[in-house]
C-alpha cells in the first residue's frame, strides 16, 4: 500500500513536471513566435517608413520649385498680359518658330520651323520663308502647321488690342515691327512679309519674334474654344500652345503648376538650343513672392529651388558666399542706365553743349557701380553693349581715363566759357527707387565739384511718368535694354527725335539721318564696311555733344540651390530663366537620415 501510494505520487510529480514543462515550452515557443512576428512587423514598419521617406524624396526630386515676384498673371498663353507673358509662356508653354540660342544672340535654332530663308518676290517685297516641321501636334491633338502660326500672330496683333484684357503693349509693337502680312502658300510653309522699314533689317523682327516673350504659337482650336474674351478665366487653363510644359493648375496671386507635355519631342540639338522634352521632372511649381526677402528666405530653407525673378542686389552679393546656393549673374543683360539732361530752354543752361560736356567730364560711374550696385554692374562708356557689333567706347573711355583733377579742370573751363563760373542750380527727379536716389546722391557730389547744385526731387511714380514723358524734368535717370544684338537696338530708341518713352527735347535731324542710314546699311548676308563708320560717328557725336551720359550696364541674375542641375541662365532672352526643361535634381546620398525641405 505504501509502495502504491509512493508510485502514485511519483507519477503525479512526473506528470506535473511533464505538463508544466510542456506549458513552459509552449509558452516559450509562443514568445519566440511573437518576438519573431514583432521583429518582422517592426522590420516591415521600418521598411514602410523607409519607403515612404524615399517616395517623399523622389517626389521632391521630380518637382522643381521656382520663386518669382511677377505677381499678376493670367492663365492664357498670349492674352497680352505681362504676367502671362513673363511667367507662363516664357517657361515654355507656348511655341516659337525659332529659338535664339542660349549663349549667342546671332544664332537662331529650329523650333517649330525646321528652316528659314530671307527672300524677295517679283514685286521686290522682302519676306522670310519658314518651313514648318512635319507631324507636330498640339496637346489637344490638332496639327501644328503654318495656318496655326498665322492664326497665332494675327490674333496677337489684331484681336488683342481690342480686348479689354490686353495690357502688354509690347505684343502689339512686336508684330508691328515684325511683319506687314503673312501668307500660307502650303500647309507647312509660312511667308512673313517684312515691314517697309525692315526689308533688309531682320534683327528687329527676328529678335521680337524669338528673343522676346511674344509671337508664341497656340492651338487655334483651343484658343477659339477656351481663350476668347467671353471665357471665364478658369477656361484659359485649357488653352494650349506647343511647348514642353502644360499648365496643370493655377491659383491667382499664389502660383501655378505645370506638368510635362509627354508628346513633346526631344530636341536633336539639345535642351540649350531650345525647348526639349521634359524627362527628369514630373512637375514645375511656380510660387509667387511679393517680397524679395521672403523669396530669399524660401531659397535658403529649400522651400524653392530657384529664385528666378528677382532677388535684391544686396542679397545676391550676400549669397555669393553661400556654399548651398549658386548665383548666376548675367552681365550686361539688365538696364543700361543713362543720365539724361533736358534741351528745353526753361531748363537752361542744361541746353548749352559746353555745360553738358562739363557735366560729362565730372560724372564718374565707378563709385555708382561699386556702392550702389555692389559691383554687379559694369561701367559703360557707350550705350552700345560690348556684345554688339560696332561697340565703340573709346570717345568717353578716353575722357574717363584722365585723372580726376584734370577732368574737373576741363569741366571748370567749360563752365567759365559757357558763362557759369560759379555754377547753377538744377534738379534731378526720381520716383522713389532707392538705387536711383543713391545714384543721384553720388551725382550730386560729383556735380558740386564744378559748382552745380543738384537738387534731388522725389515724385510719385505716376507723376514722374507724366513729367519725363512731358519734358518736365531737367535731369533724370533713364534705363534701356536692347532687344536684339545690333547697335540700332540701343541707339535708335535713345536718339530718334520721336522718343517713345521720354522727352528731353533732343531733336537733331542729322542724327536721325545717321540712324536711318545705319539701319538701311544692314545686310543679312554681311554689313558693308561703311556701316561701322556710321555707328562710330553716332557714338562719337553722343560724347562730343554730351547728348546723353551713359553710366553703367546693369546685370540680370538668378539664384538656385546647388542641388539643381542642368538649369543654366538663358543669356540671350529678356528672361534669363528660360530653360526649365533642362533642370533636374538628384535624391541626396543621405536621404535616409534627412527629410526633403518641404
Amino acid at each position: 500500500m505504501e509502495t502504491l501510494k509512493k508510485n502514485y505520487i511519483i507519477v503525479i510529480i512526473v506528470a506535473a513536471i511533464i505538463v508544466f514543462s510542456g506549458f513552459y515550452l509552449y509558452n516559450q515557443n509562443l514568445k519566440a513566435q511573437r518576438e519573431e512576428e514583432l521583429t518582422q512587423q517592426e522590420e516591415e514598419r521600418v521598411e514602410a517608413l523607409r519607403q515612404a521617406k524615399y517616395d517623399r524624396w523622389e517626389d521632391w526630386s521630380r518637382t522643381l520649385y521656382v520663386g518669382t515676384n511677377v505677381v499678376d498673371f493670367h492663365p492664357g498663353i498670349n492674352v497680352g498680359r505681362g504676367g502671362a507673358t513673363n511667367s507662363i509662356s516664357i517657361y515654355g508653354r507656348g511655341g516659337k518658330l525659332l529659338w535664339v540660342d542660349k549663349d549667342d544672340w546671332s544664332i537662331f535654332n529650329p523650333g517649330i520651323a525646321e528652316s528659314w530663308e530671307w527672300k524677295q518676290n517679283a514685286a521686290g517685297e522682302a519676306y522670310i520663308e519658314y518651313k514648318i516641321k512635319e507631324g507636330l501636334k498640339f496637346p489637344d491633338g490638332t496639327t501644328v502647321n503654318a495656318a496655326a502660326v498665322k492664326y497665332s500672330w494675327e490674333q496677337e496683333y489684331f484681336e488683342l488690342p481690342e480686348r479689354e484684357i490686353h495690357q502688354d503693349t509690347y505684343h502689339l509693337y512686336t508684330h508691328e515691327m515684325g511683319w506687314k502680312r503673312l501668307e500660307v502658300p502650303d500647309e507647312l510653309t509660312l511667308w512673313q512679309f517684312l515691314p517697309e522699314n525692315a526689308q533688309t533689317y531682320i534683327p528687329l523682327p527676328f529678335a521680337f519674334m524669338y528673343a522676346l516673350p511674344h509671337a508664341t504659337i497656340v492651338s487655334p482650336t483651343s484658343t477659339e474654344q477656351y481663350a476668347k474674351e467671353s471665357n471665364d478665366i478658369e477656361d484659359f487653363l485649357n488653352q494650349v500652345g506647343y511647348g514642353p510644359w502644360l499648365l496643370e493648375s493655377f491659383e491667382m496671386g499664389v502660383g501655378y503648376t505645370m506638368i510635362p507635355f509627354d508628346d513633346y519631342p526631344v530636341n536633336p540639338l539639345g535642351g540649350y538650343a531650345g525647348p526639349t522634352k521634359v524627362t527628369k521632372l514630373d512637375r514645375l511649381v511656380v510660387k509667387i513672392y511679393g517680397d524679395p526677402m521672403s523669396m530669399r528666405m524660401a531659397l535658403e530653407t529649400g522651400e524653392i529651388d530657384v529664385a528666378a525673378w528677382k532677388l535684391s542686389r544686396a542679397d545676391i552679393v550676400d549669397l555669393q558666399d553661400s556654399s548651398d546656393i549658386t548665383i548666376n549673374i548675367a552681365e550686361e543683360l539688365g538696364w543700361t542706365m543713362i543720365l539724361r539732361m533736358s534741351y528745353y530752354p526753361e531748363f537752361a543752361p542744361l541746353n548749352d553743349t559746353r555745360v553738358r560736356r562739363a557735366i560729362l567730364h565730372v560724372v564718374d560711374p565707378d563709385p555708382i557701380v561699386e556702392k550702389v550696385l555692389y559691383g554687379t554692374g559694369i561701367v559703360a562708356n557707350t550705350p552700345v553693349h560690348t556684345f554688339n557689333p560696332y561697340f565703340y567706347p573709346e570717345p568717353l573711355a578716353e575722357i574717363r581715363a584722365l585723372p580726376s583733377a584734370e577732368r574737373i579742370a576741363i569741366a571748370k573751363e567749360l563752365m567759365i566759357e559757357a558763362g557759369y563760373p560759379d555754377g547753377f542750380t538744377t534738379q534731378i527727379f526720381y520716383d522713389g527707387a532707392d538705387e536711383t536716389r543713391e545714384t543721384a546722391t553720388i551725382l550730386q557730389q560729383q556735380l558740386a565739384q564744378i559748382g552745380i547744385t543738384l537738387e534731388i526731387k522725389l515724385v510719385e511714380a505716376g507723376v514722374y511718368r507724366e513729367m519725363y514723358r512731358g519734358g518736365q524734368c531737367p535731369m533724370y535717370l533713364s534705363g534701356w535694354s536692347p532687344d536684339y544684338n545690333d547697335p540700332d537696338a540701343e541707339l535708335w530708341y535713345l536718339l530718334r527725335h520721336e522718343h517713345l518713352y521720354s522727352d528731353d527735347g533732343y531733336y537733331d535731324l542729322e542724327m536721325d539721318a545717321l540712324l536711318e542710314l545705319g539701319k538701311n546699311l544692314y545686310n543679312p548676308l554681311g554689313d558693308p564696311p561703311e556701316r561701322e563708320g556710321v555707328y562710330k560717328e553716332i557714338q562719337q557725336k553722343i560724347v562730343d555733344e554730351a547728348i546723353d551720359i551713359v553710366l553703367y550696364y546693369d546685370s540680370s541674375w538668378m539664384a538656385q540651390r546647388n542641388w539643381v542641375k542642368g538649369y543654366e541662365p538663358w543669356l540671350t532672352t529678356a528672361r534669363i530663366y528660360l530653360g526649365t526643361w533642362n533642370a533636374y535634381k538628384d535624391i541626396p546620398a543621405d536621404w535616409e537620415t534627412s527629410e526633403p525641405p518641404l
Partner: protein
Amino acid sequence: MIIPTMFLLLTSVFFLMHIIPGDPVRLAYGDEMPEEFIQDIRHRMGLDRPIHEQYIEYMKRFIRGDLGISFTYKIPVRYKMLERYPTTLELTLGGIILAVFLGVPLGILAALKKGGAIDHIIRIMSLYLYSNPSFWLALLFQLYLGVVLGIFPISGRFNLIGRVPHVTGIILFDSLLAQDFQVFWGNFRYMFMPWLTIGIVRVPMLSRISRASMLNVFGEDYMTTARAKGLREWLVVYRHGLRNAILPIITSIGGSFTWLLGGTVIIEKIFSLPGMGSLLMDGLMGRDFAMIQGIVGIYAIIVVLTNTFIDVCYAAADPRVKF
C-alpha cells in the same frame, strides 16, 4: 446715417482721384502704346467726358451695384475684389481670434494681479509689442520660425500641389467643409505666421482695454456680493466681472476688425498673400479709379455693417442696452 456717409466718402474719393496727376490709361498700358490708341481707350472708358458727367455716371452705376472695370486688370472690379477678399478675411479673422485669445486673458490676469510682478510684466510686454512695427515682427517670425526652426513655410497661402477646395474662398473653412484635413493643416501652417504677426500687434491694445475695463468692475458691489456668496474666484471674474466689462472690449475688437479688413498691405507683401491691401496699393499706384472707388465704397459698407453687428453684440451682452 449710412447713406450720407457713403455719399460723402464716394464723392471725395472720386474727385480726389481725378485731381491727382498721372494718366491711368498710360500707366495701365505702358509707354510703348501710341498716343492715338491711348486716346481711344480713354474715350471707350469715358475718361474724356466732363468730370461732372463721369461723376454722375459713376454714382448711378454704384447704386446699381456696378463698380466698373478695373484699368489695371481689365475685368470688373467686383470680380477682382471677390477674388481677393477671402484672403483678407481669412487673415483678419485668424489674427483677431488670436489677438482675443491672447489679449483678453492677459488683460484679465493683469487686472487680477494689479500692481504685482505679473501685471508689470504683462504691461511691459504689451508696450514692447506695441512699439514694434508689424513688418519687423513679420520678418523676425519668418527668420526664426521659418528659416532657423523650419516649423512654418516662409510665405504663401497654401501648398500648390493638390486640389484646394473652393467654396467660400476661405481655405481653412472650405477644407473643413470638404473634410480635407491635409489641406486644412497645410493652410493652417501657411497662415499661422501672418496671424501671429497681426494678432500680436493687436494684443497690447486688447489687453490694456481688458485690464482697464476689469479694474472698473472689480470695485463694484456685485463683485463683493458674489464673493461673499462663496462663488469660486474664476466664476466671479468671468461670469460676473467679464460679462459687465465686455462692452469696451467688444468695441475694441470691432475696431480692430475693420482696421485690419481695410488692408494689411505690408503683411500681405511679406507673406505673399493676395489680399485687399495689395489690391488697393496697386490701384493707387496705377491710378485705377474704378478699383479704388470700388474698394473704398465696399469698405464703407463693411464698416457700417460691422458697427451694426457690434451694436447687436452690445445688446446680447448687456440686456440693459436696447438695439
